[in-house]
């Protein structure tokens, strides 16, 4: 009898433990303190440290709000966030990327902040581009960008001069010429850090866009003004031929499989002379032990035959979960990060193209590797910023497909013509089905 009673007690205790473990804290405390759960996506250690400092500052200004920062590893972050959003609780503020805002808002997981931000003073301090990205086609605000990623050409000034060139390449043709001249596989010196692995499509599309810059639809970088896809244009084939020649004549053969880490490593350890990358690489290269600060700098994005380049803008920002119970506090945090010192610190420490107008007067952005970004901003007609259809629900599918196609061309299993026909029909069909 006793044993059975004991068993029953044990079971009750176990059940109680399990149940209490399952309960999710609402975030509110008796003294009125609110805890916000914040999740980041493009996590890296340096960035998390910066974010934590900013959060500490925010908590100091708002003693009744605590922020609990969750930093999942980048590779799985968006999937983790998705799961949290789907469950509907446990998440207040989150990092929304241009590629996730579309699907997540369709699923009604994101909160539209436009009403709360109606009288917000911060709007006037944001650059036009930032305001543009902070509002979707219907004027709803699902996130405020914290910065922008944009391409520029990192190059080795010593190698360029050594090969007899006065200036860095300005166009894709220049790049092909200079990189070919520098390439010397016997000495393990390569021209260009080609991207053949993950996200290979991004650079291939950048070339094509540069070649059709005069006819491109600025609201949708994959469309021409006549409504057809950029891949259907005859210039696209010329662009790709130059681009693939760059691989054959001036890149390491193994770059078929190069993704972000290999490209940056290749440039940073001195084996390649040119690298097309986002500004965040500036910080990474500053720590290189193989090449010194004097050996490299940046040049504006490469242009097509018309002397124009198209900047494929990518961005991310902070938004609020639709299931959050503390939307007012979460809005406070989002606006805090989009204003003044917090915004400036975040962009500078992470090497991002800034969101505040005031950056134009900042000496920091006028020197060294940043100078090319200023040049691009000052010449918006030559360096056209174009919105990419990154919020399409099939964007990830597209990336996987286009990456595989590029590798097929590199391995000789597909011709550039076949690739373009395939891409053209892919996007035409997708737009039709919309």
């Amino acid at each position, binding site marked *: 009898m006793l*044993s*059975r009673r004991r*068993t*029953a007690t044990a*079971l009750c205790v*176990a059940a109680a433990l399990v149940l209490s473990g399952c309960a999710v804290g609402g975030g509110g405390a008796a003294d009125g303190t609110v805890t916000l759960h914040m999740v980041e996506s493009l996590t890296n250690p340096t960035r998390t440290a910066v974010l934590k400092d900013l959060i500490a500052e925010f908590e100091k200004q708002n003693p009744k709000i605590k922020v609990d920062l969750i930093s999942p590893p980048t590779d799985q972050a968006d*999937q983790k966030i*998705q799961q949290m959003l789907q469950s509907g609780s446990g998440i207040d503020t989150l990092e929304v990327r241009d590629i996730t805002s*579309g*699907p997540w808002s*369709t*699923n009604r997981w994101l909160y539209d902040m436009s009403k709360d931000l109606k009288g917000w003073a911060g709007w006037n301090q944001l650059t036009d581009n930032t305001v543009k990205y902070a509002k979707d086609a219907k004027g709803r605000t699902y996130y405020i960008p914290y910065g922008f990623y944009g391409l520029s050409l990192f190059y080795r000034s010593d190698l360029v001069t050594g090969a007899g060139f006065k200036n860095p390449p300005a166009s894709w043709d220049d790049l092909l010429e200079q990189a070919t001249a520098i390439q010397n*596989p016997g000495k*393990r010196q*390569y021209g260009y850090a080609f991207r*053949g*692995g*993950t996200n290979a499509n991004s650079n291939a599309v950048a070339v094509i866009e540069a070649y059709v810059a005069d006819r491109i639809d600025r609201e949708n970088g994959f469309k021409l003004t006549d409504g057809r896809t950029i891949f259907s244009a005859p210039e696209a084939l010329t662009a790709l031929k130059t681009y693939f020649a760059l691989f054959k004549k001036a890149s*390491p*053969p*193994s*770059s*078929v*499989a190069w*993704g972000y880490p*290999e490209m940056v*490593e*290749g440039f940073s*350890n001195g*084996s390649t002379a040119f690298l097309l990358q986002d500004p965040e690489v500036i910080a990474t290269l500053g720590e290189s032990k193989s090449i010194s600060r004097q050996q490299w700098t940046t040049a504006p994005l490469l242009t097509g035959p018309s002397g124009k380049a198209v900047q494929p803008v990518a961005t991310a920002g902070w938004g609020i979960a639709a299931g959050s119970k503390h939307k007012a506090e979460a809005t406070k945090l989002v606006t805090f990060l989009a204003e003044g010192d917090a915004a400036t610190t975040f962009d500078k420490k992470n090497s991002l193209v800034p969101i505040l107008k005031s950056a134009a007067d900042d000496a920091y952005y006028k020197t060294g590797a940043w100078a090319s970004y200023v040049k691009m901003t000052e010449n918006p007609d030559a360096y056209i910023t174009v919105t990419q259809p990154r919020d399409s*629900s*099939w964007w*990830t*599918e597209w990336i*996987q497909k286009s*990456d*595989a*196609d590029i*590798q*097929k061309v*590199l*391995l000789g*299993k597909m011709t550039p013509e076949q690739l373009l026909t395939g891409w053209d029909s892919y996007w035409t069909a997708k737009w039709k089905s919309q």
Partner: protein
Amino acid sequence: MKEPVASPSARPEGEPGGTPTPTTSTTDAAVEARPDAGPDAGTDAGTGLRPRAGGRGSTATATATSAPAAPRPRRPVFTGRQGLTVAAFMAPAALFVAVFIYYPMIAGSQMAFRNWNLNDLTDTSWVGLKNFREIFTDPVFGTVLSNTGIWVVGSIVPQFVIGFAIALWLRRRFRFRGLYQAMIFFPWAISGFLIGILFRWMFNSEFGVVNDLLEKAGLINEPIPWLADPKTAMVAVLIANIWYGVTFFAIMILAALQSIPDEIYEAAEIDGAGKVRTLFRITIPSIRGTLSLTVLLRVIWIFNFPDLIFAMTGGGPSNETHIVTTWMITVTQRGDYGRASAIGLIVVAMLLVFSVFHLTATREKSATGGKRATGRKPRTRKTKGTVS
């Protein structure tokens, strides 16, 4: 019949306890059986009955199986009260398994028949077998299937042979044996994804250590673009996986070897048996059960082990190194959970067919040595538990 279900479901949770269940049961039987194992007749009869029961391995059937070896034991009969207590003790575990394994499994599998795309969850209607049709007609599917075959066979054969050799070598007593053992078992404790990243850099054509060593040894003149060529990329991921998995075989086989009594070897020596003969007549037959079970486990695990490939090649170049499970991940990344679940179900089905086939085949083969063999499992299980 149910055995195979247990194995695949146990693996993803990382619960080594899943499959070795039967072992607990047959311990006594085997240990008792061994000394008089010489004349096989008696054992034969026993195994003839057993495989099915032994495979499932609930405590009740287990005790029953030892029947032929020992004089009929008291069969535990549960009276109402005892039965209730047993049920009460089992309830939390049963509940846990039901909630955390079976419910998600069933909930997940119904996604396979729906239009379940994370990019748009406003319409998750029933689409029947559409997801399956799309998988079977996908041009990548053929490559994925043959790669999976290459991946499993190409990994397991060398892993088995090298693992066996290491186990034989570590069985002998020598100085610092414990240290060597620990060093050899260490890779098993590292995450597959991390190993993938390490090997991705080692196989890097320009900056990798592999090409560097080959060049210094004078074997190649110019760097091999390992991960850039589909063929060499497959070789590279296989090498990484072999390095990783040898350990598990070494652990399992060593544990089994240690349970073979020295007297048998002494007897063989006195009878004038050579090394080869001892290996094939004593060592291998004695541990056949462990070998067969380890192979089964490893096939399932390797099949379900996308980490390495995913970190090293991401299934590239141009989808040429995808196996079913890495392919499933890319589909998941697209947000197409419907199709990913369908692939998951196909994986389960394939493993089920394989497990049934394997168990049937090894049952017939080990008809003579089966009893002795299964007896080794309890120890192997213990070893594994402590290491992994």
